[in-house]
């Protein structure tokens, strides 16, 4: 499975847009990109998933360039409650089989300041 590289930490202020980039140079043709959010002492929570171009939901947007070797999670107008660890995962999408081995790295610690 393709591993990913993300910044260890990022800081932002309330109301700003935050972009977290993830590198996945070894992404396979049928791999999807998925992002999770984790608050302290809780399990990760699914945010968004995409295969190419742009995906948007009520929480975030995911931008994937044509070569798919990286992706960017965009959080619009962050608030203090967005302070969390964000994980980028790459692996087979719906219908695929990972044999259970989904790799969560150390993620990116986003801290939002007032």
């Amino acid at each position, binding site marked *: 499975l393709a591993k990913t590289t993300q910044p260890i930490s990022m800081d932002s202020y309330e109301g700003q847009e935050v972009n977290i980039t993830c590198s996945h140079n070894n992404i396979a043709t049928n791999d999807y990109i998925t992002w999770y959010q984790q608050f302290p*002492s809780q399990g990760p929570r699914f945010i968004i998933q995409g295969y190419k171009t742009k995906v948007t939901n009520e929480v975030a947007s995911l931008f994937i360039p044509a070569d798919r070797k990286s992706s960017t999670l965009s959080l619009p107008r962050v608030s203090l409650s967005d302070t969390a660890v964000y994980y980028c995962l790459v692996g087979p999408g719906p*219908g695929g089989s990972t044999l259970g081995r989904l790799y969560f790295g150390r993620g990116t610690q986003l801290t939002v300041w007032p």
Partner: protein
Amino acid sequence: EADIYQTPRYLVIGTGKKITLECSQTMGHDKMYWYQQDPGMELHLIHYSYGVNSTEKGDLSSESTVSRIRTEHFPLTLESARPSHTSQYLCASSEENEKLFFGSGTQLSVL
């Protein structure tokens, strides 16, 4: 919100005790997982299951065991707890790959 539950939320126990961490989901998911996570570190997959009577070890060697007798239930057992087992244990389930639903976790402390 996902309907996956872990109990207990916190557990402090002495060395040598046998413990079982409970995990239940009401979504009918076939796939279930156990991850172990230390503070500020990555999640490590220790066990997973594709369905009833199906269990596999994950990437991180663990002295724990699991069972899957019912679809909704995936308990994890430590026969003899040691201080090195102190960690957060996260249970998850999924219907499709990479849309995992996690429980709130069990924080285990072994004295």
